């Protein structure tokens, strides 16, 4: 069939040959075939660089390897089971547990899962609001806008190590000028601030908001800028106030973009590691990724299992977000 088409004289085109034939073949594909064809680069890239290693890692999570590497045992899902029964907590830094062992504050804050969720909710919520605010400001026309834009994006351009360093030094016990101010307000602990789970989590959330609001702002701004301006004309004539224009035109039209932004920020937030490591430590603010990294060198199986469980938890949260955003988010 395709041979048929190619052998026909290319009546219109000036060139001929395999390229034309290929292009024609391409254009004649059904939507589905075409879709899958265009996705091949994605599949190939993800296959090599993501799927293959993930399978390997999953394989790893099914084994127990003794520290001297001499004893490699297939244990099936034991690593996973042990994670949930608390058996693996001893491999986790400090007093960290995977699941909370009790419902009081101390136990909850020792749990990597709880900390991760707290961090994700706190940071994503505020980042979305602030990012939206920033985007709305940047969307306006005013003198010097490009500089304000650049300024607002700067935090996103600062590497995490440096971001961590900045906040670490802000709360450092020698020179941190922020500790007394915030301690007076009762927000953070006055001493040993960065080793206090609540304070450190708060600071890390703030640091993350500082940096990643720009991510949100940038994305939402792009969404804002893609809105057909004539819709605002219509709305204005229809009598919409600024707020109503936002409510009825802007918001619904940038919702898909916000959706993507929230989705990815949530995913990133639930994988938080770097900023914790540089501002405080995984012992103090135990996130799930922290747990993966800290077991990484010694307990590969456990590490792999935690990685997969982390992914599964994120998956659950993401499904939640998608359902909450409505079917057409995807």
């Amino acid at each position, binding site marked *: 069939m395709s041979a048929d088409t190619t052998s026909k004289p290319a009546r219109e085109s000036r060139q001929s040959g395999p390229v034309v034939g290929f292009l024609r073949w391409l254009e004649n594909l059904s939507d589905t075939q075409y879709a899958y064809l265009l996705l091949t680069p994605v599949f190939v890239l993800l296959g090599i660089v993501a799927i293959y290693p993930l399978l390997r890692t999953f394989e790893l999570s099914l084994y127990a390897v003794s520290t001297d590497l001499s004893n490699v045992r297939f244990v099936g899902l034991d690593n996973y089971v042990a994670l949930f029964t608390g058996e693996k907590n001893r491999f986790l830094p400090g007093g960290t547990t995977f699941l909370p062992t009790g419902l009081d504050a101390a136990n909850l804050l020792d749990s990597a899962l709880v900390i991760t969720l707290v961090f994700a909710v706190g940071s994503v919520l505020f980042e979305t609001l602030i990012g939206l605010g920033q985007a709305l400001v940047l969307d306006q026309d005013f003198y010097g806008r490009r500089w304000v834009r650049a300024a607002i994006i700067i935090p996103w351009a600062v590497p995490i190590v440096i971001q961590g360093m900045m906040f670490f030094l802000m709360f450092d016990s020698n020179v941190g000028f922020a500790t007394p101010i915030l301690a007076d307000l009762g927000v953070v602990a006055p001493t040993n601030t960065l080793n206090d789970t609540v304070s450190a989590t708060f600071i890390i959330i703030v640091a993350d908001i500082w940096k990643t609001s720009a991510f949100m702002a940038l994305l939402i701004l792009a969404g804002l800028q893609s809105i*057909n301006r*004539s*819709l605002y004309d*219509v709305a204005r004539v*229809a*009598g*919409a*106030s600024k707020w109503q224009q936002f409510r*009825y035109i802007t918001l619904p039209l940038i919702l898909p973009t916000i959706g993507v932004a929230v989705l990815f920020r949530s995913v990133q937030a639930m994988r938080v590691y770097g900023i914790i490591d540089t501002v405080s430590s995984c012992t103090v603010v135990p996130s799930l990724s922290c747990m993966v990294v800290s077991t990484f060198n010694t307990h590969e199986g456990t590490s792999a299992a935690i990685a997969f469980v982390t992914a599964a938890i994120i998956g659950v949260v993401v499904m939640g977000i998608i359902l909450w955003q409505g079917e057409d988010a995807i």
Partner: protein
Amino acid sequence: MARVRLEHVSKHYDDVTAVDDMNLDIDHGEFICFVGPSGCGKSTTMESIAGLTKPSEGEIHIGDREVTNLPPKDRGVAMVFQNIALFPHMDVYDNISFGLRLRNYDKEEIERRVERAAEIVQLEGMLDRMPDEMSGGQRQRVAIARAIVREPDVFLMDEPLANLDAKLKVHMRTELQRLHKELDTTIIYVTHDQEEAMTLSDRIAVLDSGRLQQIDPPLVCYNEPANLFVAGFIGSPSMNFAEATVTEDSLSTAYFSLAFDPASVEAVDVGDEVTVGIRPEDIYPGRMRVEVEDPSSLISTRVDILEPMGDEIFAYMLLGERRTSMDQSRADDQLLMSVDPDSTIREDTDAEVVIDRGNVHLFETASGEALAHGLSPVSADLETETTADADN
């Protein structure tokens, strides 16, 4: 109440003057049509009235308020946009009810109004469609419905019927007229359809290059165009023009001359260069001479092209020697006439025609200003009735 006044309104873009010193005074309850060639500034004027475009100069008043700096929402206008601009994320119902929801009308009222509007624009079964699932005409109707549910003081409609078929157009026109009466609103309306402009409007505003050329009731514009531009623009097919020189007793064009007494028109002297304008329907086949009220002498022509339109036939008649038409508009040696479809006229035959002198228009060639509408009768025949009519 909703009188709309524009005072010396201009709008300049970088290198274009879209509206140029526009003065308009539209009464409460008037139905005004803006007509004019593409790009003459109709939409821009509408947008200034709506508050979407800030005029570079001038003031705009709606009712007894100066609104030049007021935001659109406080002007009490509803608008049908030339580019339709439906909200892509809302279904038809939501699109139509948008303005009402903004004003917190109660649900039943909204529903009632939307249903009524949908009925008017004949979109009853489609309230839950999304804009991208509709045809061009259907979208345009949604845009109309969106404006009419609002029942504002002033309606601005920018070519609202452009994409509708003839029957629907007629229907919509009737509905608009009814609405106009019912709601007692001011309507400003842009159309390229002269029939529409004629049937709908109280007055027609003719624009060209951003300038107002004439604002008058439709028949006045038709029968007594203020200048060459209006004369040529209003009426389809367009008026025939011929350069003429005023002689002692006639207007003499390159191919024919009309009996004329220069003294009868004050501004005309012998030797002046004038332009004669004759509408296609004021040219008759020679055999009908007796029926014409103030006929000119017979002019011999050749039938070049016939365009049968169903209810009439457009005949392009060549004057003089040229035997084939090149450009149909404003070629000096050509006359377009409209003949009855039952007529036996044939292409490429010679034919004599006669012009109704009573409906001949005279313009100063240089300035384009109208000098006279209807030449005074040479014979002692009756005054032509139509001209007299239009004068009232």
